[in-house]
Every structure is written in C-alpha cells, then in structure tokens.
C-alpha cells in the first residue's frame, strides 16, 4: 500500500479532464516522488464506480488514503490550502508565495 492513494474522477477526455490529470500527475511527481498510487476513472465508462464513491461532480479528486477521505471538487487549482487539505508537502510550492497565503 502506497503512502497516498488517490482516485481522480473525470468525464471523458476533454480539456477539463486532461488538465486535471496533468496537474495531478505533476503534483505527485514533484512532491510525492513515487509514494503514491493514482487511478483515473472516467465516469462515462464506469458510472458504477462513481455510484459507489457517491461522486456528483467532475473532476473530483478523492484521497482514499491516508484516511479520512478528502474530496477536492473542481479542476484542481493546486493552491497551498488545497495541498494542505490533501496532506501533501507544501514547502517551496512554486505557485503560491508565503506572503500571498498569509493575506
């Protein structure tokens, strides 16, 4: 079992889905370096998995592990606060500066 287990629910392979997958892949590579497992689920192909996980919106990122579960709804603007919610290391995050976060 990896340290982080994610499921990303997307609808089809449109721009919004691809962006979400790219952003998430980059985050995992940059910050988790192989300590994670990521499954991308297309709700059109697997509605029953969306049913089981009670997913309403796409994209939805579901952190299965570590528990408790966390759901991030939307195309993942990965701000420091979102990363913090996911429990992902945020030191040196390039997109958000310390001063912006404090305001």
């Amino acid at each position, binding site marked *: 079992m990896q340290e982080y287990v994610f499921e990303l629910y997307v609808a089809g392979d449109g721009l919004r889905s691809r962006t979400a997958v790219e952003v998430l892949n980059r985050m995992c590579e940059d910050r988790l370096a192989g300590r994670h497992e990521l499954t991308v689920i297309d709700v059109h192909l697997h509605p029953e998995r969306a049913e089981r996980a009670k*997913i309403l919106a796409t994209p939805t990122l579901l952190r299965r592990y570590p528990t408790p*579960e966390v759901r991030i709804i*939307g195309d993942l603007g990965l701000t420091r606060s*979102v990363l913090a919610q996911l429990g992902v290391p945020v030191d040196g995050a390039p997109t958000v500066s310390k001063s912006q976060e404090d305001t």
Partner: protein
Amino acid sequence: MTISTPTMRKVPTGVPGLDTITKGGFPEGRAVVVAGTAGSAKSVMAAQFLKGGIEAGEPGVFVTCEETNASIRDNLRGFGWDVAAWESDGLWAFVDATRSLDGASIQAGSYDLEALLARIRATVNRLGATRIVIDSLDGLFEQFNRDVHFRNELQRVITRLSDLRVTTLLTTERDSEYGAPSRRGVEEFLTDNLILLRNVLTDEKRRRTVEIVKFRGTSHGTGEFGFSVNGSGISVIPHLDITDDRVLTDERITSGNTKLDSMVDGGLFRDSIALVSGAAGTGKTLLMTSFVAAGVALGERCLVFAFEERREQLIRNARGWGVDFEAMERDGLLKIVAVYPEIATLEDHLVAISNLVEEYRPTRVAVDSLSALERVGTGDGFRKFVVSLCATFKHRGLTAMLTSTTPTFLGGTSHSESHLSTVTDLIVLLRHSEVAGILRRGLMVLKMRGSRHDKEVREFTVDSLGMHIGEVSTHPIMVPGELPQMPADGDDDQGPDTG
C-alpha cells in the same frame, strides 16, 4: 416557449385524483417541479409517482439528495410500499446523491455535474426506467456553492434527462405557503411545469392542498384542490361535476316512513341525496334509522357513518325504536362506521368515506351528522367537502341521507347549509316548539327536486315503533325566515316570535 399542442402525451401520476386535475397526468418526457414547505408531502408524492409507473410495469429511479436509501424504504413501508422488493425486481433503483459524510469536501476550480448525470443515465438504462425522481433540489444545492455556475449545471443535467425520454419529478422546499415558489428563487426557471403543495393552518384547522401553477403547452385544472395523506399515500380530491351526464332514474324507493313517502309523492328517487335538518333531539337520527331499516328489509346493503354518537349509542337508539342494527350487521346488510370527527382532516374523511363506499358497495348510505364534521374544517373547505361527498354518492347512483344539526336552517345564516341546499335533492326540516306549555314537533318538506311535494307543516309523535307523522299543524311550530336562533341542544326553544 412551447407551442400549445393538443397532442402532448401525459403519463398517469399514480396519485388518485391528480390525473383528473392535471387532465391526464404529467407531460411525458418533461420535468415537473413539486414545491412545498417542510412536511407538505413532496417526497410522498414523488415516491407515489414512481409507484404509479411500477404498477404499469415501468421502472423508476429515485435520486435521493437528503435522506438515506434506508430511511426512505422505512418511510414508504408505512404506506405499504415494499421498495426493497421493487429493487430486487429491478423496478426501482436509488441513486444516492446525499452528501458523503466520510470526510472533508472542498471546491477548487470549475466543475460539472457529469458524474451525477452519468450515474442517473446508467441506472435509467440498466432498469429501462421511464420515470425519475430527484428529491430534493435543495439537497443538491446544500452540497455546492449556490452560484450561477451550479445553477447552469443543474439546468443542463435536467435538460439532458429529458433527452432520455423519461418524465422527471423534482422536489424543492419553500419557506412559506404563499410566498416565492421556491427557496432559492431559481428552481421554477428550470422547468415549464410547477406544482405547489400546501399544508395550511387556518383557525387551528389544517388543510392540505395541491395547485398546478403551470403546465406549459397543455391545459390543467386551476385553483387549489384538497388532498389527503392516508395509509395508502396521497389522494387528491378533484371537484367532481355533480351535474354529470348520467341518466337520472325515476325509480322511487321508500324513505322508511310511509307518510313521508306520500308527502314527497311516492318516496325518494333512487339516486338522490336527502338532507334532514333540525336541532338536537328533533328526530333526525330516527329518520335515518328508519331509512336504513327499510333498506335492509328490502335486502339492500346499507352503510352508516356516525360522526356524532358512538356506535353503541346508535345501536341503543335504534333498539329503542324497534330496530336491531346488530342483527343487520350480522346478516351482512349493514355496516356502521363510527368516527370521531377531529381525528382527521376533512379530506382524510372524504377519502376514507369514498374508499369504504367503494369497498362495501352499499345501496343506501347515511351520514349522521354532517354538521359534526363542520368543526374539522373551515368554511370553504367544508363547502368543498360537502360538494365532493355528494358527488361521490351521486356518481355511484346510491341513495344517501345526511343529517344536519344546525338550528338556523331557515334563517339562512349557516354557511354550510346554504351550500347543502344546492347539492341535496330533498330537504326535510324537523323542529320542535313549546306551544302553550306543550312540546310540539313539526316536520316539513322544504324542497324535493323533480317532484311535487307537500307544502304543509305536519306534527309528529315518536314512540317505540318510530315516527308517526300526523295532521297539518295548526300551531306556529315553524315560520320560514323567522325562526329564532336556537341553541344546539334545542331544549329551550321558545317558539317563533312573530311580533
């Protein structure tokens, strides 16, 4: 904007009476919003809509946004609906759109509701469903930012559902009975079809009503219609047309009192409604008892609704006049149903009466007294109740006798009786009066629709054999239009003041 077309198909709603006021049901393949305050029976109507489909062999999908599947199954079991059995038969399926309680949920960036749509679509396709319920929109709103983006997404989902050729019922909660149609002020734009359910408290009396506000492109009944929520779900009470095209019969039957029969030129018409009005103790229940006894003697089934007296009391009264109600019940020709008026709303009573009439199929029915039910509803509600009750009897072509304990009949001050007089065919007035130290009882036929009748006031006496109507009274027992206001117990009637 849809152009009005007479060819729009409708699907039966599954709710008794609602098809009548919707003129055939909900518009097929469209979305209908049902809005109402908390406890207005929105979810019951939604579930009953799916049940209606299931009974016609058409599966339905219940998208629940607030209650769990288990609690919905539990609630509906109270109506005798076995959701679990329908689920295993592939006739009903839930889509659980309640908030996930497993952990935090954060919105970051833009999204769509494609997952919800995909889940509903997959379930519809799996079952071959023709009906969808979403209960409630508010439950979905609670889970997202209530912004323009979310509303547009929801609108898109609902539009996509109609592409599936299913008829959708959406519920939404209102904050007040006569305010904005919905809480957010947006849901009504989602659809061309809006129904309001109300649960109004007036003068400490509760009345449930349904109103079809709009059905785009198709006609429907207007105004509020009462409805009842009882052991088998919702029953809507349409305003039945009492002047239907049914052929009236000329057949006469005995009222149970031969003298009264001759006063109305040969008895009651078979499909008529008689009203016996008088203060307490004037002999209304006696006339009703004779009416029933005469029916039973002819082998006719009789149904008695007692709203004023207990069953035992009614049986004892009858025995005092030589009528054995208990034996008649044993013989299966009589059924006495004693109900305390305050236990239910007028609509509940109406549905219960109507169901019993349907089930027992009597030839004669008696209601003793109708006025006891007036305590349960407000003026307009009672008027509609009486009209619907009489229409129910008329449609079945049975003979009905209703009693009314109201002391001011001729004065015309009683709201209910002025309506009673238009829906009843025969009105018999009973009065008692003290004249020169002697209590005299008088009876007169105020009207008899479609027949000649006596115009005289006749005195009568009561003994262990019943009522004996005698000669034309020479005493001023009743003077039309000038009757005094008598107290309900009627025992200190001072006689009319003609001065």
